[in-house]
C-alpha cells in the first residue's frame, strides 16, 4: 500500500493511504477527543456518522473545520488539532450537547463510566451557556426485562442504531423524527418488548451515555440474600471470570475465577456454583442430539433437519423466533446452560438438600443482558416460579461486590462448591465464539467414533472472523461446521443456507461480537476491541489449564445422569433440559 506524508501539529508523519486524520493522529500519540465515533477492529464494526463534531480539527486551506474521524489524509495536508479555533468549537459544541442533556450525573446508572461525562471533564467544561427555559428534548421512558431506555440522555451518536441494524440486522431501532427531536427509537416509539428486539443488548454495550442501560437487579439480590427464609445459590457464566477483573482495574484478559468465587461467598450466597457445569450438560444433550440427527440423516431419514443450530444464546433464539419462523425445528431443542442449571438446581439439587423450589433462589451472573429476559420466559417457570430467579450482568456483580465493602483485589482464590460447580475446559470455552461447537465436537467425536481424540484444540474453529467454516474428520465422516457471531452474520449464514450455498451439519451462533466475552453485560469496552481479544485468550488459557477438557468426562455430569436423568435425551432429560420455540414473526 502507498504511503503518504502529512503534518499534524507541526510534526510530519507518514501513514498508509486511506488513513483518517483521527487514526494518523493516534499513530503519533495525539489523542483527538471523539464522541460518536467507534471502531471495533477485527470485528468489522465501525460507527462513523460524523455527527458529534467533537473530533473536528483545522486543516489548512479548508474553509471549515474537518471531522477527523471521517476525513482521509491527503499528501502534504497540514493539520492542527489544538488551536484556539478548534478548542472553542469543541467546547461550544460539547456545551450544546450538554445543554440538551439531563444533569443528573450523580444518580445516573452510567455515573463514572459515561463517555460524555469523561469528555466534559477532559475539555474542562465548567458551565453551560444557557438560555432561560431552553428547550430540552424528552421522550417516553421504557423498561423491558433486559434493557432500559432513557432517551433524554441520547446524544445521537447512532452507535446503537449501527449495532442494531448494521451489525445485528435486527432493525428494532432506527433514527426517528428529525431536527431537535430526532432520536433513536423503536417503531412508533413503542416499548422494546412490543418490538422485534432480541435483547442482545449490544446497543447498551456501546451507548456512551446513560441513555441505554441494563435493568438493574442488584437490589433484589441483596434483598434475597438478606432474607433468612431463602436459600440463595449462584451460577456464573464462563465469560464473566475473564472480564470481571476489569471492573476492579485489572488488565483485560485477567482470569479472576478464584477471587470471583470468594467474593460471591462473602456476598452471602449459600452455594457458589458454575454455569460451566450446565454447559457440560448442554454438550451432553446437544451433542447427543447432533449425533442422533446425523445418524438418522446418514441412514436416509428425510424428516431430519440439518444443520443443527446451537441454542445457548437467548438473543439468537429471539432472533430466529422473529425472523425465521419456518425454521423453528432446526435449532437444537436443548435449553441454554443458564436454564439447564436452573432446571437442575430447582429439581435435582433442591430435592438433594430438601428445600422447596419456592424457597430456593437461583441467581445467575451473566455476561449477557438477554439472559434477564430468558429467565423470565414462561416456559422456564414451574407454576409461575422461574427456574432462574434473577440474572445479573458482570457489571452488576462488580457493583454488588463494591457495595458490600469487599476489597476484591485482596481476596484469596477459592473453589466452586460441589456438585454443580465442577466443570471441564469444554464448558469454559462456551464464552468465546466457536467454543460451543468445539466443545460439542470434542464430545461428539468420541461418542461417535468410540476413539479418544488425539488433539483437543480445534484451532480451525477459533478466531474472530464473522463467519467461519471448517470440516472435521470424524474417522472418515466429514462433518461440516459453520460458525457465526453477531446476528448480522447469523442472518448471512442462514440466508446462505436457504440459498443452498452451504452444506453444514452443525452451526454455532452467538449474538454478540466475539461470543459471550463480548456480551452486553460485560465491562464496557468503550470501543476498544483489543479488550475482547484479551478475554478470548483468557478463556482458552483457562481451558488449556484444566485437567478435564471434554464434557462427557465431568464426573458430576456422569453422576447426574446415573442418579437422576438416566441418559442424554431421556424422557426426564427432555422434560427438564429441552424446550421449544415460538413463532414471533410480526
Amino acid at each position, binding site marked *: 500500500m502507498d504511503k503518504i506524508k502529512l503534518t499534524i501539529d507541526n510534526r510530519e508523519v507518514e501513514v498508509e493511504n486511506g488513513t483518517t486524520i483521527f487514526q494518523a493522529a493516534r499513530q503519533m500519540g495525539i489523542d483527538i477527543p471523539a464522541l460518536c465515533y467507534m471502531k471495533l477492529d477485527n470485528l468489522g464494526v465501525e460507527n462513523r456518522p460524523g455527527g458529534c463534531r467533537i473530533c473536528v480539527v483545522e486543516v489548512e486551506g479548508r474553509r471549515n473545520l474537518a471531522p477527523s474521524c471521517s476525513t482521509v489524509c491527503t499528501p502534504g495536508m497540514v493539520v492542527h488539532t489544538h488551536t484556539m479555533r478548534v478548542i472553542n468549537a469543541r467546547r461550544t459544541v460539547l456545551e450544546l450537547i450538554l445543554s440538551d442533556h439531563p444533569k443528573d450525573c450523580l444518580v445516573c446508572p452510567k455515573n463514572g463510566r459515561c463517555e460524555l461525562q469523561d469528555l466534559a471533564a477532559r475539555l474542562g467544561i465548567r458551565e453551560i451557556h444557557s438560555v432561560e427555559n431552553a428547550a430540552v428534548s424528552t421522550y417516553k421512558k421504557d423498561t423491558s426485562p433486559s434493557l432500559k431506555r432513557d432517551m433524554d440522555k441520547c446524544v445521537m451518536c447512532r452507535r446503537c442504531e449501527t449495532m442494531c441494524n448494521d451489525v445485528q440486522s435486527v432493525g428494532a431501532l*432506527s433514527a*426517528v423524527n428529525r431536527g431537535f427531536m430526532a432520536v433513536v427509537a*423503536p417503531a412508533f416509539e413503542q416499548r422494546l418488548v412490543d418490538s422485534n428486539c432480541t435483547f442482545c443488548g449490544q446497543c447498551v454495550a456501546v451507548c456512551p451515555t446513560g441513555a441505554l442501560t441494563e435493568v438493574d437487579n442488584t437490589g433484589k439480590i441483596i434483598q434475597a440474600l438478606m432474607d433468612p427464609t431463602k436459600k440463595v445459590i449462584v451460577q456464573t457464566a464462563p465469560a464473566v471470570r475473564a472480564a470481571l477483573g476489569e471492573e476492579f482495574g485489572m488488565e483485560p484478559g485477567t482470569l479472576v475465577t478464584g477471587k470471583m468465587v470468594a467474593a460471591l461467598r462473602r456476598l452471602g450466597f449459600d452455594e457458589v456454583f458454575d454455569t460451566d457445569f450446565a454447559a457440560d450438560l448442554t454438550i451432553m444433550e446437544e451433542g447427543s442430539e447432533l449425533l442422533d440427527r446425523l445418524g438418522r440423516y446418514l441412514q436416509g431419514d428425510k424428516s431430519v433437519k440439518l444443520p443443527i443450530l446451537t441454542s445457548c444464546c437467548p438473543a439468537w433464539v429471539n432472533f430466529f423466533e422473529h425472523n425465521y419462523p419456518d425454521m423453528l425445528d432446526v435449532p437444537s431443542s436443548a435449553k441454554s446452560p443458564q436454564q439447564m442449571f436452573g432446571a437442575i438446581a430447582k429439581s435435582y439439587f433442591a430435592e438433594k438438600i430438601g428445600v422447596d423450589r419456592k424457597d430456593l433462589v437461583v441467581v445467575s451472573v451473566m455476561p449477557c443482558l438477554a439472559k434477564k429476559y430468558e429467565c423470565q420466559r414462561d416456559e422456564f417457570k414451574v407454576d409461575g416460579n422461574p427456574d432462574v430467579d434473577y440474572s445479573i450482568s458482570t457489571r452488576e456483580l462488580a457493583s454488588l461486590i463494591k457495595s458490600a465493602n469487599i476489597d476484591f483485589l485482596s481476596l484469596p482464590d477459592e473453589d466452586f462448591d460441589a456438585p454443580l460447580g465442577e466443570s471441564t475446559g469444554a464448558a469454559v470455552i462456551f464464552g468465546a465464539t466457536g467454543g460451543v461447537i468445539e466443545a460439542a465436537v470434542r464430545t461428539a467425536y468420541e461418542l461417535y467414533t468410540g476413539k479418544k481424540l488425539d488433539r483437543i484444540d480445534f484451532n480451525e474453529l477459533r478466531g474472530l472472523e464473522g463467519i467461519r467454516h471448517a470440516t472435521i474428520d470424524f474417522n472418515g465422516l466429514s462433518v461440516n461446521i459453520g460458525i457465526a457471531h453477531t446476528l448480522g452474520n447469523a442472518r448471512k449464514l442462514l440466508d446462505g443456507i436457504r440459498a443452498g450455498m452451504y452444506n453444514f451439519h452443525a452451526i454455532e451462533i452467538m449474538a454478540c461480537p466475539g461470543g459471550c466475552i463480548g456480551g452486553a453485560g460485560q465491562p464496557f469496552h468503550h470501543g476498544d476491541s483489543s479488550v475482547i481479544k484479551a478475554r478470548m485468550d483468557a478463556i482458552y488459557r483457562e481451558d488449556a489449564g484444566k485437567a478435564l477438557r471434554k464434557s462427557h468426562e465431568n464426573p458430576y455430569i456422569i453422576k447426574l445422569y446415573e442418579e437422576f436423568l438416566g441418559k442424554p435425551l431421556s424422557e426426564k432429560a427432555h422434560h427438564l433440559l429441552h424446550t421449544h420455540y415460538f413463532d414471533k414473526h*410480526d
Partner: protein
Amino acid sequence: MDKIELNKCQKDKIAEICAEFHNSPGELINVLHKTQGHFGYLPEEVQREIARCLHIPVAKVYGVVTFYSFFTMQPKGRHSISVCMGTACYVRGAEGVLEEIKKELKIDVGGVTPDGKFSLECLRCVGACGLAPVMLVDEKVYGRLEPKQIKGILAQYE
C-alpha cells in the same frame, strides 16, 4: 393515536402498491406517497403492512415517515388548510393570517377541529409569491390574503 385494524381489502391494496414498485426497499418513499394518497394518512398498521411487503424493519419505515414533513400519521380534516410560510408570504403578513385561522378554528398547526371539518398545516413556498400571502384550502388557492378575510373564506366550507 388510535390503533386501527386493517381489513383484507386494505391489506391487499397495500400489497398491490408495494408490488407496483417491485417490493423494492429503495422505493419506500414512492410507496409511502402512493399509500398516503390512498388512505389519506399513514397509521401504524399501514406502516407495519408496508414493512412486511418490502421486507424491511418497521422501525425503518417509521424513521422515514417521521423524517419527511409530507407524511402524516394523523387523519386530516374534511378540508385541509395549508398556509404558506415561505419567505415572500412571511414578509407580506402570513403570520397574521395563520394566527387568525388558529384563533378562528381554535386549533394549532397540525391539528384537526373537533368536528373533523378542518385540519391546519403550514407548508413551504407554493411558488405563488406574486399572490403572497397565500393559503390553500384543499386545492383552491387564496391569495393576497388579509386576516379579516379568513372568517368569510372558512364560512364557505361545509
